[in-house]
Structure formats: structure tokens, C-alpha cells
């Protein structure tokens, strides 16, 4: 593949951002002059516009008052603003992140362990196979209302929804990974005297890791989706709750702020996974003395 200069790539990215944001910001103003060019969807009533979203962000995050004056850090205005709204942007983000984290971790751990056990046991996988296929055929999000009904509108229902979308993803990848282990590796270990447990620890788990990691980036997005859907259905706090409230007020900017925050959260979480993968799977990167 041809290598492009970094500056050129970044230059294009900046250009694309500038075009999209400009059309978003000013595109609808062209409607009076060129009505055939501008679709209804560009109406700020539906999609807001970047400047309004930014202003709304400052208000929701208590950085400015509703009139646009900056809230002082030291005179206590900022603190008072936060206290006034229990589900302010900071608190909402924190609660959504927390639930996402627990849903993700429990989903990954349980999916990994189950995948490893079933992947290594032909008998168990034969027994459970039809059940897994059946449950996997259910769109997990369809279970969210039931989960909220069962676990209430608190954090637990969000964690469970998140868990249920993550666990299968990780399970199937781990399962496939554990099944497709190169027999040469297990034989080599066995012939060097490894016990079954040593083989699991030193061969099965490391060679399954690449498969597991392939599922973690989608898993973290799924975990976030699970939590947000749970919050849509019933919650007192969280970013999903913010979106529902803004929607009820017909306030596109408020929803967009939440969406942008979710996007940033998603990017940061994926970046963390990516870093972790680059470190743990560093052996995959060194290529080619030949």
C-alpha cells in the first residue's frame, strides 16, 4: 500500500470536518435562496446546529448559566448549579459510564469463562449448543423492557441489559478461539510434560486472546448501547435519561449534546481497549526478518 504523508491525511480529515460542520451550521440558511437544494432534514428544529449544541453543552454542564454568563468556580455558582440538577451532564455521564463498565466487565469475564469451558469440551458444547443458538437468536435489546421490569429502574437493570448484549459476543469469539487452537501447540506442550491445567494456562488462554480482543471493541460499544436502552426504558439518571427528557421538551440541542458526549465516551473507551490490545498482543506485530 502506498504510504501517505501524515499531514496530508490530517489535512483531509480537517477539511471533511469543516465541510460537514459548515453545512450543519449554515446549510439551512440557504433555504430561502435555494429551496430545491436544502432538504427539510437540515432544519435546526430536528438536528440543531453546532453553535446551539455548544451553547447547550455549556448550560447542561453548568459551565454557564442559562443566560450565557460563566458560572464562577470559586463563588459557588458552579456547585449550586450542579446541586440543583441531580442528573446534570457530569453526573449523567458518570452514572452511564459506571454501569457500562460493570456491564462490560461482567459480560467479558462470564463470556470468556463460558467460551473457554465449552470450547474445550466437546461434550458440554454438544449439550448446550441448541440452547445457545436459541437464546442467541433473540435480539437482546428486546429483553430490555423485561429486564427493567424485573430489576427496577435503578442501576442493576442497566448493568444486566449491558451484560446480556456483551456476554454472547465475547462468548462466541472465545468459543471459536478455543476451538481453533493449533493442535501443534497443545501437542508440543503436552510432549514437554504440561498438565491439562498448564496447557489451558500457557497455550489455550494466550492463543484465544486474539479472538477475545477482536470482540472487545464491539463489546464496549454494545455495553454502552445496553445501558442507554435500559435508561430509555426507565431510569432516573444517566445520559439516556437526558436524551428522553430533551426529546419530551422538543429540544434537539439537548439530545445532540448527549449524543456527542456518548460519541466521545465511545471513542475514549475504544482507545483504551485498543491500547490494551496493542500491549497484550504485541507478539503479533513483530514481522519479518525474512
Amino acid at each position, binding site marked *: 500500500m502506498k504510504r501517505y504523508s501524515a499531514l496530508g491525511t490530517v489535512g483531509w480529515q480537517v477539511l471533511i470536518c469543516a465541510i460537514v460542520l459548515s453545512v450543519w451550521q449554515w446549510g439551512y440558511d440557504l433555504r430561502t435562496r435555494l429551496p430545491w437544494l436544502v432538504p427539510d432534514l437540515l432544519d435546526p428544529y430536528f438536528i440543531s446546529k453546532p453553535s446551539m449544541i455548544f451553547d447547550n453543552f455549556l448550560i447542561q454542564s453548568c459551565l454557564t448559566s442559562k443566560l450565557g454568563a460563566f458560572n464562577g468556580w470559586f463563588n459557588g455558582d458552579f456547585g449550586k448549579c450542579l446541586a440543583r440538577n441531580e442528573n446534570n451532564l457530569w453526573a449523567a455521564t458518570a452514572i452511564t459510564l459506571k454501569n457500562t463498565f460493570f456491564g462490560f466487565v461482567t459480560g467479558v469475564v462470564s463470556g470468556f469463562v463460558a467460551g473457554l469451558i465449552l470450547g474445550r469440551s466437546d461434550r458440554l458444547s454438544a449439550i448446550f449448543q441448541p440452547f445457545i443458538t436459541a437464546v442467541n437468536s433473540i435480539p437482546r435489546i428486546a429483553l430490555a423492557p423485561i429486564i427493567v421490569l424485573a430489576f427496577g429502574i435503578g442501576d442493576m437493570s442497566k448493568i444486566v441489559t449491558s451484560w446480556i448484549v456483551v456476554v454472547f459476543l465475547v462468548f462466541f469469539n472465545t468459543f471459536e478461539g478455543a476451538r481453533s487452537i*493449533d493442535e*501443534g*501447540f497443545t*501437542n*508440543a*506442550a*503436552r*510432549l*514437554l*510434560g*504440561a498438565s491439562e491445567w*498448564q496447557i489451558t494456562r*500457557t*497455550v489455550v488462554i*494466550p*492463543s484465544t*486472546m486474539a479472538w477475545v480482543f477482536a470482540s472487545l471493541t464491539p463489546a464496549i460499544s454494545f455495553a454502552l448501547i445496553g445501558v442507554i436502552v435500559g435508561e430509555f426504558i426507565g431510569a432516573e439518571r444517566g445520559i439516556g435519561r437526558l436524551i428522553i427528557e430533551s426529546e419530551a421538551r422538543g429540544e434537539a440541542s439537548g439530545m445532540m449534546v448527549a449524543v456527542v458526549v456518548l460519541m466521545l465516551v465511545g471513542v475514549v473507551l475504544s482507545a483504551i481497549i485498543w491500547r490494551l490490545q496493542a500491549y497484550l*498482543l*504485541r*507478539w*503479533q506485530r*513483530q*514481522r*519479518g*526478518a*525474512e
Partner: protein
Amino acid sequence: MSTLETSAPVSPRASADRRVEVKGLSKSFQLARTTIEAVRDVSFDVRRGEFVALLGPSGSGKSTVLNMIASLIRPTGGEILIDGKRVVPGKATPNVGYVFQRDTLFPWRTVGDNIGYGLELSGVPAHERRERIAECVAQAGLRGFENAYPSALSGGMRQRAALMRTLIVEPQILLMDEPFGALDTHTKIDMHEVLLRIWEREQQTVLFVTHDLGEALTLADRIILFSARPGRIKDMFEVDFVRPRDAVKVRETEHYAELFQHIWHSLGEEFVKGRSA
């Protein structure tokens, strides 16, 4: 000689000298409803410290025999004794080391950690492990690559590392399944030198599977020639070149050429048969 002596069973000395005994070994595979007979009634013994090459065309069952000796494959008939004890399929026999056709170095471990794997399994403390890894790394000419991952190494380097991973636990019996089959000619001859020097020093009993007659002649004391499928022993040849051997110079001798011609003819017949089968 008294009758008592001649009628005496095999002397304990002689039987103690037999490290590996293969008796009436057979193996059939079930492949899409047809039974394929891979190995038919193979019997041979290997003496302590002997270097034996199993030579034959591909599909002659020589690797299958080796894998049965290694306990990787369950025989359908016959038995294998190592030091007088029956080999149990699926259970590693102590003292037996195995070198695979393609190197099976763990890609997630560095070269040093790969070589030290066997010691790690048996719980050798880290500092002692480091010393012995360093020795092996030096012996394999891999200094400076201890911390590299296998993917960064050339084929020859990888196979040397794989050989050291097997040798570090000091097995008395070495089973080698075309270990240098994937290497180019020069690298291969380098590996022959490495292996000959190690074997001269450690005097392991070696069973070496190959389809390369030159390789078998360079290395072995004895060549067991396998026929095309179903694999049977067609012939055996003593290879009596002086030890220690030089992997390059041995090929230049007249005696080498003679033996090569002699066995080549017999091997050639099997290649032809193997092709038509």
C-alpha cells in the same frame, strides 16, 4: 558352549540395550467411509544412543509410526515399549523429546521464554532457568534474539529455537518428524552440523523421520526404509561412516556415493508406487 547357555533367553544386558521396541505396529484411519491402512505390521528395535532414520516417500506412514511412538496417535494394533515400558496413547512419556516438522514455537512467547518453557512447566526457579536458557541460546547461535518474538526470526532460526526448547529438558530419546523439511539446502546442512555436534556430546537415542536420503545418510547409523502405503518396512541399511561426521565432507566421500546409489534405487521404486497409489 553348554546347552544351558544357548537355550538361555535374551540376556538382560542385551534387552537393557534396547531403548525403543516397536512390535507389530499397525494403524488404519477411517476417512469418509473408506478405511485407509497407513501402517502395516511394523517391527523394529532401536539401541541406546543409536541414530535411526525412518526414510520413505510421503504417505509411507513413517510419521505415523513416529507419532505413535510419541503417544500422539493411538495404534490400531501392536505395541511400543520405551525402556521396557508400554507407551500409553495421549500420555507423554518422560525422557522423550519431540521436534515437529514445522516449528511449533509459541508466537506469544519470546524466543527465550519458548526455550525455557519445559523448565517452567517443571517449576525450575527463574534464576536457574535464565542460566540454562542463556546456554541454549548460545548453543543455537541465537544470541541477541532472546527477547524477540518468533515471528521476527527466519525459518532456520525458528527451527533451532524449537530444537533447543526440546533439548533443554535433556530428553534421552529424541523423536524428530522431518524437522528440517521446510528449510533450504544450506540452512538444512547447517542444522545437520548443529544436530550432529549435540548428538555426539549427549548421545541421545534418535528417531529421525525424513524423505531426504542425503539427510538420512549424513546423520544416521541406520536407515529403515518404508514402502509406499500401506507403510511397511521394506529394507534396513547400516550407515557406517566414521564418527564424528562432518555434514559437508561426508557427502564428498566415495562410500557415500555408493550407499546413496544403492538405497536410491530401492527408494525410487517406492516413490513411483506412491505416485500411482
